[in-house]
């Protein structure tokens, strides 16, 4: 049974493609595209002061790395047009008397225009601009004396707070999930469509044997995929694995089992391969949004957070980040493994209860 299933996979180029290539492609696309760290915000500058000080201010904005001066506006109208057209997300207007006020010790306001349509960009722009202004002010007030209070931030575990480090360990889990659910569901439904499931039902093979025969090759395939994605993560995205990958695999095993069982469950409900495909995606989408893969669980309203903790994906993503970024080991992760094993057992039971009935 298992050998036959493997032959199916090899003989069916579309399945193989879906199974191996698409996740890798997604990984590369998403891995590069998802970058919530906002950098290089296009900025338009209208410098009416045209003094040494005003140029220094613009430079200190650029030096943060968050702002790129894209437009040098000649007048107010041009500044506005740059923002409206989207050529710039942020506008800086330094008034004519700015240097004079600054040097005479009067408050020296300059105007910061922020395009609020992308909240992440706006937030970052405001934060950085305030920091720049504050630093400039302090420098003026304190001169060469050291700062009275200083924050020395040190971000642990993901030192340069790269998004890739945050996303790729989660992506790895989500892609493995998609593939495990999708492959099992379509493989069983294909047998339904072809009528081969009925033929099998007429043989002495028990439903349990049929299911095991189907699940084993897909289990290997899914685990293999998990490893492949990890390899790409290290090789292409340069996300180092701080903990032991073996430990992570141990936690991933019950997860993959649960996902295969979900696929099986889907196959008992769907009549066609398209239906199965859609239903499988339907199970994946909540996992993407509620598992902490995209949005941190801690910032979710309580009911959603509770829901998130009911999803196996949440637990493996947590473990995956734990091992890869924080170097967590078995001592920290056994609860994840235990929860996932429990979930796997539950879904398997459900699938086993439904499967024989749907085969008839």
């Amino acid at each position, binding site marked *: 049974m298992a050998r036959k299933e493997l032959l199916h996979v090899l003989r069916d180029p579309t399945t193989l493609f879906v199974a191996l290539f698409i996740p890798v492609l997604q990984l590369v696309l998403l891995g590069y595209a998802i970058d919530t760290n906002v950098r290089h915000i296009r900025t338009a500058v209208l410098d009416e002061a045209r003094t040494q000080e005003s140029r220094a201010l613009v430079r200190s904005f650029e030096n943060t790395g968050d702002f790129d001066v894209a437009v040098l506006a000649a007048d107010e109208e041009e500044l506005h047009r740059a923002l409206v057209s989207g050529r710039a997300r942020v506008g800086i207007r330094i008034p004519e008397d700015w240097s004079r006020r600054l040097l005479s010790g009067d408050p020296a306001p300059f105007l910061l225009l922020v395009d609020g349509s992308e909240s992440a960009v706006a937030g970052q722009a405001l934060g950085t601009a305030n920091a720049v202004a504050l630093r400039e002010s302090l420098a003026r007030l304190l001169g060469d004396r050291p700062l009275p209070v200083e924050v020395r931030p040190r971000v642990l575990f993901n030192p340069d707070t790269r998004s890739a480090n945050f996303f790729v360990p989660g992506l790895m889990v989500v892609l493995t999930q998609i593939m495990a659910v999708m492959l099992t569901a379509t493989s069983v439904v294909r047998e339904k469509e*072809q*009528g081969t499931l*009925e033929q099998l039902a007429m043989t002495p*093979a028990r439903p349990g044997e049929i299911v095991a025969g189907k699940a084993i090759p897909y289990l290997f395939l899914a685990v293999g995929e998990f490893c492949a994605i990890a390899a790409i993560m290290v090789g292409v995205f340069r996300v180092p694995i701080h903990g032991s990958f073996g430990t992570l695999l141990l936690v991933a095993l019950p997860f993959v089992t649960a996902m295969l069982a979900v696929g099986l469950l889907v196959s008992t409900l769907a009549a066609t391969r398209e239906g199965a495909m859609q239903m499988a995606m339907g199970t994946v989408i909540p996992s993407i949004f509620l598992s902490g893969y995209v949005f941190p669980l801690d910032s979710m309203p309580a009911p959603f957070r509770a829901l998130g903790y009911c999803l196996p994906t949440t637990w493996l993503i947590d473990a995956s980040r734990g091992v890869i970024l924080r170097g967590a080991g078995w001592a920290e992760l056994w609860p994840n493994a235990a929860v996932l094993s429990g979930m796997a057992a539950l879904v398997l039971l459900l699938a086993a209860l439904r499967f024989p009935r749907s085969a008839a």
Partner: protein
Amino acid sequence: MTPALEARGATVRFGRFTAVDGASLSVGRGEVFGLLGPNGSGKTTLIRALCGLVPLAAGEASVLGEDARRRPERIRQSIGYMSQKFSLYPDLTAGENMEFYAGIYGLGPAEARERREELEALVGLGPYADRRAGRLSGGWKQRLALACALLHRPRLVFLDEPTAGIDPVARREVWNLLFRLSADGITLFVTTHYMDEAERCDRLGYIYMGRMLALGRPADLRALPGVTPPGTRRIKVKGEDASALLASIRGRPGVREATIYGQSLRALVDEGVGPADLGLDPSRVRPAEADIEDAFISLSRAEEARRAAERAP
């Protein structure tokens, strides 16, 4: 000796719909039993119920001495099943399909190889063993399916429309194969829509809207009293243009039924009605025997009438 297969009052329901309604039948060992009936009459469902694949709502059934309700696994170990729709793996080769089923039936490697060779020789599949099953032509697909159903030396084989959609030569070859199996003592339970195949069976059953209307040898069914009712006779008319003949006699008083058979026309007419009454040349008119199709049509009509009468009051 117990019969190979027996059912008493077997009833299968899907929700409120009754697909098989109190069917009783018995098939002797080594017999070729043919089950006929219109589309949707419940043939496939009856087979599935006999194998314990769908539960019986009422009645009982046993196959090879095993109760279909309690021991379906035992039954499945000793029967072969060839489904109506081709249901092997199209992406595996013929040989791989056979290997797979040999594994499923728990044959050891040596036995599997031996059976495979025997069956490939029996059905003549040798040259096609490495061809993907999905690319075989209809006749070869059926032969492959039959070979797969025979791997574990079943004592009874269910064949659900084994010859549907294949050419007459392949059809004959499949039947020759079936007779060879039958000669080896294997009981065959065949469904078909072909009357010539029905004639080849030892015994027949006719199922209509889930009810088993008649059981018996082909000759018995042709001779059923309802087929050529008292006071009527069957005639055969030869003519150049059978369809013109049909149009001319249909609806005349005394004509009960009329259909075309190739170049000739067959009709059921009242006893007193002669060629002259039908405007026919007497030299062209011959008396005719009822055939199996006539038998089935009159059985269906009678059942239809019975149901209508049941609904009326």
